[in-house]
């Protein structure tokens, strides 16, 4: 229990402390130490037999609640000030509605708001905590080197507010721990709001007009989710006289359906599903560690965590079907939108939106098999996506561009980063890596539960294939004689990048262990039965893994027994094959450019379709929950 509390409080405390540290060396020491402590803490917790006995919090409840109330009021007032200053009546209105509701609720029901267990640890929260501790910790280490380069080399015009940045990073991490360990819905709500506020501040970090605008958009959408969350708490307490998450999940569907639908809505806003996906795309203006944090270990994962938690309550209902539809539509639209853009971070963002859609789809279907697949997706996506973001961050600093077209020949320019990026991409979509195993599991779960929904998966995943492979190809092809760029990485950056690359492989190798140790027990405890891949299939996956691992070995024969010539260009080659003499005697440059389907698909149009479609689905969901 103390360990759980420590995991929540230590990062938050460290964050508050880092807010006053201006000295770079001291910051390095603190960040390193706290990250290490959190890392060891999560591992120690994971090594315990589960479910960990969740004792009583050793604080006076009255004062604790009062303290929390004060924090909430403080945050609420801050948000209102922000809303007034930026002249956004919607922010003020949403905050007033939600704050007023909660204040009234606490003041009238205050003494009765007791939960038997404020915190609890089961296998699902453990998985989330591991992701948060390991991946989130890696991001914090990476941020040390990255932010120095960001301010001292790349973006001298941006005011250096690093103390605030690292403070927010760690508070975010602590809040995420709180979020996954909370059983008391009031606590969960508090941590939920902290992540909303932190993400708002981090997105607006550079304080450019664009950053401010996008930060406000993120705030509006997440506040809408927060309002739904508050309504869910009040409704559930009103009808079931309880504020415990565990009670909510295990109560009858008639009782749990409305709050579960509201919480699913909150989860959908937080995990940036259509029609709310624009906030996550806008969040790309922030420095790369923020994007990595929002996309892989915190924030959006909080959203899908909640949706998957609600899965038993919505399974088999119209609400569940609608949640699944939102996820399915988002998966297809997100994957197609990722084809149309050549900006690396935007491709990653769309791919995150799409993959979260897949997880939400699993949550909406809500059978044991689907939840099992969804949890696998969460794990593998966090690792691979974080790796990709961090790689893109490095490349952006070295090449001063995040355009995929500029990454041509990266395998020669920046060989180590390019290989890590290829590992990350393979991890995102190739057999036998984790994401593909999970997609396979999703497909099976969906076919068993409602085969018609599988149409989203088959079309979406073929689009996924296209944009990843063309990116991989871009990294591999080498047209011009390339100069090698110096590939110096800060210590923290190296640890994060190498660690995550190794984790991508290890997560696949130890996939059966992850499944049997964490995921299957959770699914078993909730549904009474569990899913797994057959033994024979595991063997086949291992063989495929060996194939992939053998591939680099073939480079032993690199350049042996072959004669190297210029590429065929349809004319007389000049200057070592980077140009040729065309028919009119002019020298033509060779220029390779990927397809983006701009004539066929259009990002804005796709978005519009998705927003309209998903809004209708959500409206149907609201109607279904109330009727």
């Amino acid at each position: 229990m103390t360990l759980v509390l420590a995991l929540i409080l230590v990062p938050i405390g460290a964050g508050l402390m880092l807010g006053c540290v201006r000295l770079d060396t001291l910051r390095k020491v603190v960040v390193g130490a706290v990250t290490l402590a959190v890392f060891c803490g999560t591992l120690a917790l994971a090594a315990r037999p589960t479910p960990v006995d969740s004792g009583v919090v050793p604080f006076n409840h009255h004062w604790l609640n009062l303290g929390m109330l004060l924090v909430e009021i403080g945050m609420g007032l801050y948000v209102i000030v922000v809303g007034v200053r930026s002249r956004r009546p919607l922010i003020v209105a949403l905050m007033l509605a939600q704050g007023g509701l909660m204040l009234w609720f606490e003041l009238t029901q205050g003494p009765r708001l007791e939960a038997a267990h404020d915190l609890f640890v089961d296998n699902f929260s453990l998985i989330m905590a591991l992701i948060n501790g390991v991946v989130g910790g890696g991001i914090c280490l990476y941020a040390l080197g990255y932010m120095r380069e960001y301010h001292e080399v790349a973006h001298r015009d941006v005011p250096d507010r690093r103390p605030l940045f690292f403070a927010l990073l760690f508070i975010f991490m602590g809040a995420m721990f709180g979020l996954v360990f909370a059983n008391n819905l009031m606590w969960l709500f508090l941590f939920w709001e902290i992540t909303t506020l932190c993400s708002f501040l981090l997105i607006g970090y550079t304080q450019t007009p664009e950053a401010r605008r996008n930060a406000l958009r993120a705030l509006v959408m997440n506040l809408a989710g927060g309002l739904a969350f508050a309504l869910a708490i009040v409704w559930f307490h009103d009808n079931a006289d309880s504020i415990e998450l565990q009670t909510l999940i295990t109560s009858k569907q008639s009782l749990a359906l409305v709050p579960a639908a509201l919480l699913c809505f909150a989860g959908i806003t937080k995990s940036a599903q259509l029609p709310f996906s624009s906030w996550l795309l806008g969040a790309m203006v922030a420095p790369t560690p923020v994007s990595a944090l929002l996309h892989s270990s915190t924030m959006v994962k909080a959203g899908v965590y909640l949706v998957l938690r609600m899965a038993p309550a919505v399974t088999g209902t119209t609400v569940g079907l609608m949640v699944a539809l939102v996820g399915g539509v988002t998966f297809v639209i997100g994957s197609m939108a990722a084809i149309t853009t050549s900006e690396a971070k935007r491709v990653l963002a769309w791919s995150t939106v799409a993959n979260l859609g897949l997880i939400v789809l699993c949550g909406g279907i809500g059978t044991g098999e689907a939840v099992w697949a969804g949890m696998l997706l969460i794990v593998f996506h966090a690792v691979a996506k974080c790796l990709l973001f961090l790689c893109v961050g490095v490349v952006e600093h070295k090449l001063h561009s995040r355009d995929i077209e500029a990454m041509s020949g990266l395998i020669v320019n920046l060989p180590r980063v390019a290989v890590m990026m290829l590992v990350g991409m393979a991890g995102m979509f190739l057999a036998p890596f984790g994401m593909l195993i999970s997609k396979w599991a999703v497909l099976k779960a969906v076919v068993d539960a409602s085969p018609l929904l599988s149409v989203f998966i088959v079309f979406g995943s073929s689009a996924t294939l296209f944009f990843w492979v063309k990116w991989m190809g871009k990294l591999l092809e080498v047209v011009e004689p390339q100069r090698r760029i110096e590939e110096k990485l800060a210590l923290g950056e190296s640890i994060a990048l190498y660690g995550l690359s190794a984790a991508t492989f290890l997560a696949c190798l130890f996939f059966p262990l992850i499944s049997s140790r964490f995921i299957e027990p959770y699914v078993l405890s909730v549904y009474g039965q569990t899913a797994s891949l057959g033994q024979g299939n595991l063997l086949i996956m291992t063989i495929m893994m060996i194939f992939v691992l053998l591939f680099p070995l073939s480079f032993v024969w690199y350049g042996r027994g072959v004669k190297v010539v210029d590429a065929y260009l349809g004319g007389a080659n000049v200057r070592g094959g980077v140009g040729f003499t065309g028919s009119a005697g002019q020298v033509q440059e060779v220029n390779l450019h990927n397809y983006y389907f701009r004539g066929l698909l259009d990002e804005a149009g796709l978005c519009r379709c998705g927003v309209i479609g998903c809004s209708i689905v959500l409206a149907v969901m609201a109607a279904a929950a109330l009727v």
Partner: protein
Amino acid sequence: MLIYLIAAPVVGGLLAGWDRRISARMQSRRGPPIFQPFYDVRKLWQKQSIVVRRSQNFYILFFLLLVIFTGALFFAGSDLLLVIFALTLAAIFFVLGAYKASSPYSFIGAERELILMMAYEPMILLTAIGMYMVTKSFYVHDIASHATLLVLALPGVFLGFLYTLEIKFRKSPFDLSSSHHAHQELVRGITTEFSGRALALIEIAHWYENVFLLGWVYLFFASSPLLGVAVSLLVFVLVILTDNVFARLKWQTALRSAWVVAAVLGFGNILVLSLLR
């Protein structure tokens, strides 16, 4: 499975020989001897290896290995979805090899091959799903030993599958990525920069692949083996016929039409099945 490993290249090579013979007859030519593909491969094997980028041939080797692996999984009766994923992995190695070669023609071939993969993937997955809905199993050996003719329950899926088969065989109207006949804008597309042994490996990989694909056609008629073999061969002839009858499509049309076919025939069939359940 062992039979497949040994016999598939022989059968595949013979099929390729027949393909050239039948095509020639359709064009009022005599055509080469039936063993010509084997002679070709032997000749290619003796040629010097010429490359543009030193690592490009490694990708081809793994393409072949994975195609063989895919077929072996299929004929060993494994999970159909896993077979599809292995096939995709193999195809991606091929495409990456062409990207690596870094020539404009192989680059455009690689891009188009990717577009074609994107075009056929939904229908192939829907085929597996359709078979699962009828037989309640993704395992090839369960599907093969199912008592009824699958095609009766899955006529739409079967037709859609035939459509994607045209793409997989890289035949007109879908020979966008690498044509058997050199075209101005494409040269040889994805295989432009591969020569000698690498090209021989690609040929052999295609033999393996074709046998595996015809094996899948057989699966639709598995409860009556003779009919199955006959239909598979008939499908092969049909593919050759369309190759000779149709001109090449633009990639936009190819992609759109393949997705429409998958959505209408494939998904429509599954929709009907799930309504009937």
